[in-house]
């Protein structure tokens, strides 16, 4: 397996596809969510303090993302069992994907792997319904970037293609099975 890092995909570029474990038993393929905007949230690690704040905030804002027909996905190099324990304790209600084996492969494909730490950057990608990157933001590792930038980017996408919120769940369920 090649473990070279790619550059961060530009706005307008196709978002690199991947398949990652969402639970110990189930995987999720990014391209199966085509037709919905997707927010990819790369974060360094489960249980670390700033990540906790960041995911806690996104978890609270989840209804806003759902209203915009959007699927929110967390990604870190932690394993699926770790994600499960973390999501349970923090009541995280969106999927956390395990970029675990080969470690950081997806982070590398998005140009946000931190080789010196063995984790990813704290990075946000907003991907439109056609699978193109529409917005990206790499935050300082110690800074919680909040949700405003994501919402602004999503509103610009959704203004062009209105989406039915009720369909989101069905779509995600289909992708997740």
């Amino acid at each position, binding site marked *: 397996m090649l473990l070279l890092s790619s550059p961060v995909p530009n706005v307008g570029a196709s978002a690199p596809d991947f398949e990652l474990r969402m639970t110990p038993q189930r995987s999720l393929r990014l391209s199966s969510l085509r037709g919905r905007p997707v927010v990819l949230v790369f974060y360094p690690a489960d249980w670390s303090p700033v990540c906790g704040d960041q995911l806690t905030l996104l978890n*609270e*804002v989840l209804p806003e993302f759902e209203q915009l027909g959007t699927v929110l996905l967390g990604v870190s190099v932690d394993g699926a069992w770790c994600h499960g324990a973390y999501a349970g304790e*923090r009541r995280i209600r969106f999927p956390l994907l395990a970029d675990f084996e080969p470690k950081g492969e997806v982070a590398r494909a998005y140009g946000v792997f931190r080789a010196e730490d063995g984790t990813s950057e704290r990075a946000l990608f907003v991907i439109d319904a056609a699978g193109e990157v529409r917005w990206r933001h790499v935050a300082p590792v110690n800074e919680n970037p*909040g*949700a405003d930038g994501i919402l602004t980017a999503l509103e610009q996408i959704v203004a062009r293609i209105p989406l039915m919120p009720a369909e989101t769940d069905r779509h995600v369920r289909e992708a997740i099975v």
Partner: protein
Amino acid sequence: MSLTPLVTSRDHQLGVADALVTLVEYGDYECPHCARAHPVVKEMQRRFGEHLRVVFRNFPLAQVHPFALHAAEAAECVAVHGGEDAFWRMHDALFEHQQDSPTSLADERLAAYAEAVGVDGALVVRDLANQAHLDRVREDFRGGVRSGVNGTPSFFVNGERYDGDWTDAEHFASVLGRAAKERGRSMTGMR
């Protein structure tokens, strides 16, 4: 980041609109950091007097703080039925009692704090059951997200997010003092 919903008459505020400094706090009644910030804000009010206006907006992180949402709704309930003065006394009570016990923000305690500030506890119970003030709390929350609030407490000093230290009263006072000077200068300039 700048405060997106500007301070209006809908906001809970202590102080006058033309105060030199307006300090907006986005807070969560179950957040221990907010409870620590509470006496610091009080200290700023003591030091700055009429030159400081304090505004509180709700930012409950309800998934990690199971009592936070009801606490925020109860405070709004007290504001509606008891007025702004009662709201601020309720606000103080919530932060001051936060750490008393693991259930110090449970519904029956919220009703008791409301009683203590002169609002019928039964109204609190009824309004919580009907979610009568939930929209108001959510509106605060949404405005906070759009203003770049990323955790609690988040402070805005004259409309700009303040990311520095607030735990040290001397330092926080110097930050507010600078904001007051700048504002004072721009007001002089306008004349």
